[in-house]
């Protein structure tokens, strides 16, 4: 089968989770990438060294320089007849784009795929991850987003064999007009790709900041995550929200500080290898879902943990 994977875009730059998309794409067949939108040349260069990529289409028309999704969707629609599967990673970029592309081809997309079996059956979590639903691969063209945490990132190679083909037709719709990106202040690794994530919740409110979470994260070389409550309280930026409507993570170690463990939060951490919960409430649901549960006040426990 011929696969077109759209290179992920994060605030106008290359999204490294594209490499996870390649791993998923290789389950089906030959993977061609599309580099489009702002910085497409640079995106193509960054993606060219992903192992397994056979070709990169470079869409360079000025209409695609605007970050709006509408022109990009039209461009992909013109490429659809040449491919069996059109896919992207389940990121805010992919989730914005793929359903639009699918509808232009009169198809329903399948979003958030977490497993691809040998016979190409697709599994996706539903009901906040309480249930996994498996379907056969529909007839082509198929439009997918795949969960980056469910597929390891494909390796990078030293040299690239990927052929770069410039396509410069574009289809202008002039619909959304970009204004600005405001990157979040997070300077730590992306929680989706991180091996260790320290997440903070409503329990941090008494301290008025996320400092405790950040200190432990720095000590463990970890990414920072947050519950929705912590984001709503203004303690953490929105892109750090973990859960059903935030991001799904799969680190080797997740430590939840002052997080109750609502169903919607648990949905995002189910695939963590080891879960540690520190909560003053012995009955916090996260304690029930954890591998290790410590009932303690985070404002005394974390400083003690940090002591050498």
């Amino acid at each position, binding site marked *: 089968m011929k696969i077109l994977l759209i290179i992920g875009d994060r605030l106008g730059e290359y999204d490294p989770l594209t490499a996870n998309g390649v791993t998923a794409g290789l389950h089906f067949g030959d993977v061609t990438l599309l580099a489009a939108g702002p910085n497409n040349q640079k995106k193509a260069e960054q993606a060219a060294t992903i192992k397994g990529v056979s070709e990169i289409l470079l869409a360079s028309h000025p209409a695609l320089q605007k970050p709006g*999704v509408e022109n990009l969707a039209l461009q992909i629609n013109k490429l659809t007849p040449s491919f069996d599967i059109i896919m992207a990673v389940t990121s805010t970029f992919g989730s914005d784009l793929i359903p639009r592309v699918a509808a232009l081809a009169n198809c329903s997309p399948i979003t958030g795929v977490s497993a691809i079996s040998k016979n190409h059956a697709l599994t996706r979590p539903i009901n906040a991850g309480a249930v996994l639903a498996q379907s056969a691969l529909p007839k082509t063209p198929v439009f997918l987003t795949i969960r980056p945490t469910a597929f390891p990132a494909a390796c990078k190679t030293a040299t690239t064999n990927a052929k770069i083909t410039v396509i410069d037709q574009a289809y202008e719709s002039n619909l959304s007009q970009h204004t600005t990106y405001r990157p979040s202040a997070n300077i730590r690794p992306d929680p989706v790709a991180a091996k260790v994530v320290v997440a903070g919740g409503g329990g941090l409110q008494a301290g008025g900041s996320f400092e405790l979470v950040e200190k432990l994260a720095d000590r463990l070389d970890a990414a920072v995550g947050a519950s929705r409550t912590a984001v709503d309280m203004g303690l953490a930026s929105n892109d750090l929200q973990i859960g059903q*409507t935030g991001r799904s993570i799969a680190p080797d170690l997740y430590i939840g500080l002052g997080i109750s463990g609502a169903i919607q939060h648990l949905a995002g951490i189910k695939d963590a290898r080891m879960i540690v919960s520190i909560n003053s409430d012995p009955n916090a649901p996260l304690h029930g879902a954890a591998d290790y549960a410590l009932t*303690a006040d985070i404002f005394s426990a974390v400083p003690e943990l940090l002591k050498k």
Partner: protein
Amino acid sequence: MKLIVPIKMVPNPTLPVRISRDATKPPKPDLKNIPLVINPFDETALEEAVLLREAQIASQVTVVCIGPDSWEAEMRTALALGADRAVRIPCDFQVSPLSVAQCIKAFSILEAAQLIICGRQGVDADRGSVGPMVAALLGWGQATFVSQLKITDKTATVQREVDGGIHDLTIPLPAVITTDLRLNTPRYASLPNIMLARRKPLEKLAAQELGVELAADIEVIQFLAPPPRPPVTRINSVAELKTILSQKGYLS
């Protein structure tokens, strides 16, 4: 300006969904005892639409759903929350997202709507596909994951919550917006409004009248429970946690 808010009903998301373990039948999510509620993101969408009407930017707010009879009680809730009209396109099977999007498209054209506010995802199946699909079918602009919305003079200025930060975007109307929870805090239905809603009509419209043939969703061949996690180990001191983290190589 007329506004359309597509809403769907979902099993109350604060209650855990279990998978049935009747050995004689294939496993299935057990939803029997879970009451239906308006999808939380659609409540946010409805609130935003009602706020726009209260600010006299919108003239009429219509909620529309493609769903079974059992959704009618919650259609009334939508009326009590401030919708002017509630229209249901009857459908008693698991319908495909494309059919849903086609119905919403046709209905929006019929109503000459200028703005469609959808939820970013249904929390039942976590797809998040209908909003952008409706925008595509109509050839309108879209702004997904919106946490702030301003309408001025045929333009929507929005703040989108995206990976890595915030995306500020302006799009011309007509357009499709999908909501993030931080867009607003939905109101509660007041008792007088609940009483009033009881007397408002629930409209019905057949998909055929919109020129849409409803197609079934992709078939699920198997439902599975996620792999079980090992039982929890309760630890009694920070020292013990330190030892565990050191032994596993996370803490030196």
